[in-house]
Structures are given as C-alpha cells and as structure tokens.
C-alpha cells in the first residue's frame, strides 16, 4: 500500500513528464492549473493518466474544487 507521500510524489512525477516541466519545480501544495499552465481539458488528460497509473477510477466530480497536488493525492488515496 502506498503512503500518501508516495502517491503525491508519483503524481508530481507524472505531471512533470506529461506537461514537460522540471520535476524539481513542482511541490505538493502547488496549484496545478497555475503551475502547469493547463486548462480543465488538459487536467482531464492528467486524470486519465493518473487513473491508469494507479489503476483506479476517479469520477471527475470528486475533483471539483481540487487545485493542488496534495489534495489530488488524497482523493486518489481513497480509491487505492
């Protein structure tokens, strides 16, 4: 079972790779919309990758209002 920190780290790795930003520039409390410069459609493409990576299904309404990596990790953690 992953810890919350591990899940967060893996999300940061995936986000950095997908949107081609330096991994070290991302931290758990960042607003991923602002930090990655993405819109809601791009956020959904990140969600697709996260679902595949963690092998979970995360309804997007559970992400309403979620803007930082740490909270995103919490939502995923509840489905692991």
């Amino acid at each position, binding site marked *: 079972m992953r810890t919350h920190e591990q899940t967060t780290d893996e999300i940061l790795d995936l986000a950095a790779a997908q949107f081609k930003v330096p991994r070290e520039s991302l931290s758990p409390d960042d607003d991923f*919309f602002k930090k990655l410069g*993405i*819109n*809601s*459609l791009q*956020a*959904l*493409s990140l*969600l*697709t*990758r996260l*679902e*595949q990576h963690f092998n979970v*299904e995360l*309804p*997007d*309404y559970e*992400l*309403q209002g979620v*803007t930082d990596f740490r909270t995103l990790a919490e939502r995923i953690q509840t489905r692991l």
Partner: protein
Amino acid sequence: MHSYKGNAISWELVDGVIELALHREPCNEMGTLFLSELERLTAALPSFEESAHALIIYSRLACGFSAGGDLRELYQGIRTTEEKTALEGIRDFHQRIHRAMNALDATSLTTLACVHGIVFGGGFELALTCDMIIADKTARFCFPELRLGIIPGFGGIPRLKRDLGNAVVRDLLLTGRSFNVTKAQQIGLVSQVVAEGAALRAARATAAQLAKFDRRTAAAAKKFIKPIPYEELQQEIDIVCDLYARPTVQAALRKFVESTDAQPYLP
C-alpha cells in the same frame, strides 16, 4: 467526390476506405461550419457504396476527437437573435445534424470511430453512430450536457441505449462524469484499446480485414444488428428544443462561454 478539403473536416478515399479527418481548432467543436461540411460527406455516401467498404473517422488535433457542440456559436446565436428566431434556428440545426448522423449510422459501409483524448458531448455522439469505436489510452468520454441544463441533442441517448442499455445511460447522463478507456472497454463501448497515438493504424488494419468479406453480406449483417431508433431520435430533438427555451439554459450557456474559470468542463 473522392476527396474534399474543408475548414472543419476533410476526407479522402484510399484503397476502398474513406478517411474522414476532423481538424477544426480548438477541439473540433461542432457548429454550422462543421455541419455543412459533414452534410457534403453524407450526401456523397451513396456514391461511395460501390467504391468503398469502410469509413474511418478520426481527429488530427492533439486535444482529442471532439469537445462536442460549438457552445460559443450557439450562445452568440441566442444572444444576438430574437428568441423565437433563435429557437427555430436551434431546431433546424438539430434536425439537420440528426439527418447527417442518421446517414452515417445507416450507411452500408462499415464505420470505425478512431478516438483519442477528449470525446465529449457531440463528439461522443458522432462516435456512437459508428459500428466500432477504436480508442487509444488517452481517450476520455463524457456527456456533460446536464451541466448546461440540457440533454445530449445529436442522437447520443438513443444510440448509447441501443448499444449499452439504460443503466449505463443513466449513470453517464445523470452524473455528467467523464470516464476513461478502461471503463469504456469494460462496459462494451470500445472494441479495441491501443497505445497512445496508435488508433488510426489499428483502424486501418481493421478496415483492411473488412475488405476480405462480401460487402452485401456485411451490409445485411449491419442492418440486422444495428437498428436505428428513429422514433426516440425524433423525441430527443423535441425534448432538447423545449429545454433550450428555458432561461436557465441560456444563463448556463452564458456562464460557460464567459467563464474564466480553469475548470468549466468539470461538473
């Protein structure tokens, strides 16, 4: 017309396969331009029935297959036109797009939707006219219409119900949630899942396989196993047009179009 280059779509007939490409930025929004060009294709479909055996629909844009109806164009039409005229225009648009979708659904060619990324609303409905959906791992499907106070209006509900049953339709429609390709394959929506960027290659390989069989037999099989729910499709037009007359829908459209929120697509 064996090839056509439009501003929203283009097609080409190659080795018995019509490849229809969607390429209107930002994400293949389906408005009057798209529809008028699609009508060119559907008008030409009968002439292809001797020279082609398959139709592949795919998107050239990185964002995905299609984000669905052109809400900005729709909102502009409502905002700048007297209400009765605007509603007549909405009904006319829906009747035309239903005719085009029905023609794609009914063609004797075997049709393959080749999808990736965003497959939302009208884009999802376009894919549902096809005999098979081939998706890469980035594909994400959604009927977000309830967020605007309407229901899918391009034939999506009757076709999804035909293919998958009512329980799936209720879940997707009433929650407005999006779902990934794993889920899409589990529920039987997608027939092949391939690696990112590989859907068109897989669709071409499938189309080559289809060429081995007698076309009349394939057409008869299709007609038998893919009935078109015309009555429900007509009901859908009536319901959608009634909903568009409600002020709450117009307010929701304005909110969506004018939103600077980073999450307008999330429920």
